[in-house]
């Protein structure tokens, strides 16, 4: 160690090692390094090499000084605090040169060597006078005397048994805390069965089959009073979170029960009676939501032209769950379906407008026949319980009124829906005729020959509304980013490029030639500045793609 650390290090090591090393470094050769070199050269060439390597370093003495300080204080603390402090402080003052430091250290060492207490503590002779040493001495004295007394013929088995008992006792002692630790978790384990039974159903409820995205699931749930369509009746894609759907799972059990009973036809009249109260005053929000076909489940409502009392909760929320085809799954089979599906089914009448026979397309005539059959099956039990109360006529008239109301509502909604955007501005949606014409032509090019029925058109209209909202948001963001207050052509060109609708081979202009009529094309051509801008943007895009 001393060799490695160099001259000063060896001195400090000598300090630590004790008075035996002290003698080697006397105040005579307190020049330090030379003496140590001489001493080290005697020992091994390796040490000399190390020391030679250490000599030219000017920084090492300083480092050692800092580390040597505490060691000296440690030693001085053993003696008296006063001398320690003095030695430390003076050491720092003296330690300007390595020689001076070495001399100081030697002085300290000699002082330490002269103190008598140091030797005593090092040897540890005084510590034997501690009570423990006294006891040890006592045991040494007593041990030979007690040995003959212990081995008695009776004592051996007893001691053996005791030792065994001790072992077992120790085991018990060891076991007890181990048993207690599990006990902390034991009640939890006991409760786990109950907890599992409580927790599992919500985990598996409803969220598995559907196309819920992670974003939608992870968003916070909004309070019923703060549902977005409460304020704004727009059924926008962005304003409705899937997480809001979750609130409706409360209605699961109730809805399922009611559905079952209604299909069987036992309590159908009660459902109608309850539902009519709400249906007489349909809310506008629910109306728009329903008629938009927004997230609507399959239109299963043909069976029962009445709302469910689920509206009583003010929970006009619509399940975003897709959508069973009523034609594929006739009503009686639904009784055997799972709980979730029955809920969806049960939600259906709330969200979907009722389509009566007049409204159906020619394609749905088969379905209408089915519906009529179901109606025929269901109607008599519907009116019979009321008939006992004498309210048959009332019930019928109210039902008709409700149907009429729903029909008008549907028609009104089809004609013109005034929706409110996020900024509180009313906006129309594209006329259904335009959308239908476009969609039909596109569907024809896509290969399907059949014409688009009204529900599909509703869905397309809804998608168009969402599309326009999304596109407008994006365009507004682009314009805002560019510091403009006006949405420019560059914005929509950028948007289309980002949508990957345009690329090097497909320009907006070629797309326009393909999809737009000549008048609109001329509109585009007629304005030179916009065209210039557009072409410049296109050049840039092409350059980027070439690079």
């Amino acid at each position, binding site marked *: 160690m001393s060799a490695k650390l160099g001259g000063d290090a060896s001195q400090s090591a000598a300090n630590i090692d004790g008075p035996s090393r002290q003698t080697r470094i006397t105040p005579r050769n307190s020049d330090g390094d030379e003496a140590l070199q001489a001493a080290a050269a005697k020992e091994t060439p390796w040490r000399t090499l190390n020391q030679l390597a250490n000599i030219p370093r000017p920084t090492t003495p300083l480092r050692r000084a800092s580390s040597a300080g505490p060691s000296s204080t440690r030693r001085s603390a053993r003696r008296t605090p006063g001398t320690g402090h003095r030695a430390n402080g003076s050491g720092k003052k003296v330690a300007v040169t390595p020689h001076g430091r070495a001399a100081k250290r030697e002085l300290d060492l000699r002082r330490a060597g002269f103190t008598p207490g140091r030797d005593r503590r090092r040897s540890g002779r005084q510590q034997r006078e501690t009570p423990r040493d006294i006891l040890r001495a006592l045991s040494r004295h007593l041990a030979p005397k007690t040995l003959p007394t212990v081995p008695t013929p009776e004592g051996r088995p007893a001691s053996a048994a005791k030792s065994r008992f001790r072992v077992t006792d120790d085991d018990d002692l060891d076991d007890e805390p181990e048993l207690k630790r599990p006990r902390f978790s034991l009640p939890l384990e006991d409760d786990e069965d109950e907890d599992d039974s409580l927790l599992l159903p919500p985990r598996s409820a409803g969220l598995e089959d559907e*196309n819920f995205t992670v974003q939608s699931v992870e968003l916070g749930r909004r309070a019923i009073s703060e549902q977005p369509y409460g304020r704004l009746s727009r059924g926008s894609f962005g304003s409705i979170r899937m997480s809001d759907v979750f609130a409706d799972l409360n209605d699961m059990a109730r809805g399922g029960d009611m559905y079952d009973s209604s299909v069987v036809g036992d309590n159908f009249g009660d459902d109608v009676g309850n539902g009519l109260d709400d249906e007489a005053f349909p809310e506008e929000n629910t109306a728009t939501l329903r008629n938009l*076909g927004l997230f609507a489940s399959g239109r299963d409502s043909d069976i029962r032209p009445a709302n469910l009392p689920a509206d009583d909760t003010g929970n006009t929320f619509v399940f975003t769950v897709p*959508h069973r085809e009523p034609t594929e799954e006739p009503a009686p089979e639904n009784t055997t379906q799972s709980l979730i599906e029955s809920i969806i089914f049960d939600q259906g009448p709330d969200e979907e407008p009722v389509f009566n026979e007049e409204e159906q397309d020619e394609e749905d005539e088969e379905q209408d026949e089915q519906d009529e059959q179901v109606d025929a099956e269901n109607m008599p039990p519907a009116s019979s319980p009321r008939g006992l109360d004498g309210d048959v006529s009332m019930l019928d008239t109210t039902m008709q009124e409700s149907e009429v109301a729903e029909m008008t509502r549907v028609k009104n909604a089809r004609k013109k829906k005034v929706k409110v955007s996020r900024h509180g501005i009313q906006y129309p949606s594209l006329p259904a005729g335009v959308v239908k014409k476009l969609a039909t032509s596109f569907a024809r*090019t896509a290969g399907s020959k059949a014409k688009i029925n009204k529900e*599909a058109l509703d869905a397309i209209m809804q998608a168009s509304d969402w599309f326009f909202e999304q*596109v407008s*948001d994006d365009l507004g963001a682009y314009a805002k980013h560019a510091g*403009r207050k006006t949405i420019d052509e560059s914005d929509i060109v950028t948007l289309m490029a980002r949508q990957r609708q345009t690329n090097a081979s497909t320009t907006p202009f070629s797309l326009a030639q393909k999809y737009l009529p000549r008048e609109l094309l001329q509109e*585009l051509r007629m304005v030179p500045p*916009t065209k210039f801008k557009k072409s410049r943007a296109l050049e840039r895009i092409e350059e980027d793609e070439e690079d």
Partner: protein
Amino acid sequence: MAAGQKLYPRATVKKIVKAHSKRNVSKNVDVLIFLDYALFLQTLMKEASINAKEAGERGISAKSVKKVTAMSLSKFKG
């Protein structure tokens, strides 16, 4: 595609975009927006018809349209 006398109401498209973005729409942007919409509708109908064929339906039903709506919208996210 054979367009009729008027393909779409230009003012309506402009109003829709204006309401959603709360920004003015410069002069001929609505044509391009409508072009984008036509592309979207084409995608939507294509996907819907594929979906309908996979489901074994005759025409394009609302169900298949709804199923592909989110996907088509996400394709047209800028």
